[in-house]
């Protein structure tokens, strides 16, 4: 989306601290009525007006796609937050107003899969909660593997246990329990799809293990919204707009460009979808690629950048914007 696209005004109608780090928010449309229907795995962009600046963060929708009087999201307080998750945790109260964008699904279930294996680490459980609503009661077999630090960090555990019973497999780091990735992925029937959401290390491990077990890439699905990492401040020149923009350490390139009044099309704001792909016209220095979209070869070429999460340091960066 871009800022020109429609957003929906919502009011926070419920907040619950469900683990030491995760808060659960319920968002209802201002003035009542229904929110748009969505599919399991969808996320929304939440627009927050902070004191210093605007935050726009992606959060997976975790409620039932059949309950549309409110949306549910889970927000983990990030250690190195640039403000978005801290804003949600510290400044948003019941009754607060936020803007959200229409749901987008970049992590949908494969509809012709013969089996689904879902793997979550920590807050990565959120997109699966809505997907499980879709899978529950359908004819396709599935398993949910959920790994957490310890029982106090097991967000949404009751909801999962109640619904999923034996299909839920829990793993607690505190008990030394690890998901047996190798065994799990080496023994799945043909036509299985695996989905993983969690810390980067877990995602990379699942991707590597699946490859080692002979899985084709098309059966391995993952989603990880990178929060735009902090970095050095740098300057960027926008060639078509003919303006120079300062990017401070705790603001992303995309946010800085938007703050300067230039619109860049985006969907995920998390380095996943490739929608904000921007051409680099000149570079004296180096790009700091933090996205999951560009191939390593494209990253090395330095001819394009995903401004939602990636940065630069050096003397000069000119973008085709």
């Amino acid at each position, binding site marked *: 989306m871009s800022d020109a696209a429609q957003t929906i005004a919502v009011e926070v109608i419920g907040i619950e601290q469900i683990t030491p780090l995760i808060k659960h928010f319920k968002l209802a449309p201002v003035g009542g009525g229904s929110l748009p229907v969505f599919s399991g795995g969808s996320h929304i962009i939440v627009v927050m007006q902070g004191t210093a600046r605007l935050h726009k963060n992606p959060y997976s929708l975790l409620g039932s796609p059949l309950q549309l009087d409110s949306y549910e999201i889970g927000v983990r307080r990030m250690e190195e937050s640039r403000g978005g998750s801290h804003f949600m945790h510290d400044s948003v109260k019941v009754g607060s107003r936020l803007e959200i964008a229409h749901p987008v699904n970049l992590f949908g279930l494969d509809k012709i899969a013969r089996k689904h294996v879902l793997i979550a680490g920590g807050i990565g459980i959120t997109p699966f909660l809505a997907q499980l609503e879709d899978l529950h009661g359908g004819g396709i077999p599935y398993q949910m593997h959920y790994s957490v630090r310890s029982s106090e960090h097991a967000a949404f555990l009751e909801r999962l246990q109640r619904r999923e019973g034996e299909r839920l497999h829990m793993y607690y780091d505190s008990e030394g329990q690890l998901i047996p990735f190798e065994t799990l992925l080496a023994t799945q029937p*043909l036509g299985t799809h695996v989905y993983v959401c969690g810390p980067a290390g877990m995602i990379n491990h699942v991707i590597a293990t699946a490859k080692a077990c*002979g899985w084709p*890439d098309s*059966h391995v699905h993952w989603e990880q919204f990178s929060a735009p990492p902090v970095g050095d401040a740098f300057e960027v020149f926008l060639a078509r707009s003919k303006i120079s923009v300062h990017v401070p350490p705790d603001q992303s390139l995309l946010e800085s460009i938007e703050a300067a009044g230039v619109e860049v099309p985006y969907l995920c704001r998390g380095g996943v979808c490739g929608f904000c792909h921007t051409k680099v016209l000149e570079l004296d220095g180096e790009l700091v690629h933090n996205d999951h979209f560009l191939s390593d070869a494209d990253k090395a070429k330095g001819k394009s950048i995903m401004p939602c999460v990636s940065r630069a340091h050096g003397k000069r960066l000119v973008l085709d914007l």
Partner: protein
Amino acid sequence: MLVTGIKSKPVYAPLQADIRGRYHLMLGMGVGAAPLLRVIAEMRAASEASLKYTRVLYVPGAEAEQFKTAAVSDVQIFAGTPALLESFRQVLAQSLMGTRLYVAGPESFIGLVMKIALEFNLNKDEIRAEECGSLARRIYCIHCRATTEEVRTNIVRCVGCERWLLVRDHYSRRLAAYMGVMVDAEAPGELPLLKEVFL
């Protein structure tokens, strides 16, 4: 009426061993034996172990004997394609993720194998196919939905409605067939010269 240059026509490439796969399932017909034996040799060179997980389903061809000396543990020879396809379906039902499919033979054979593979949600990353032998086509009559087998000519009389059909390049993997469409609808009786083109 576009006949050739249609992008739905499948593109085949010479088979190569894909040692990223854990299990290798090979299906061949007739002269399709040669590409499969070539892949087996490649796999032996890359990793002897992978041959333990290699299985061959084959309809001869004079080449059946050669598989016996190829040191592949599991080779099944079938009297005809229907028996092979039936066994193939059973093998897929028991197969695990990590399986690679290698198909070699005439296009019509490849198409029938692919059609079953699709039902098991195998996709293009898991299947390799090399066309060899006859280029004869299966033709689906768009008017009466009958399929005419072993078509070698540019136009063919439909086995169902007996109309003369133009053989197009438009291909359906679901039907494992090319489209046939009435050739003389606009000018009855005006047929192009019959030519053998799919040999």
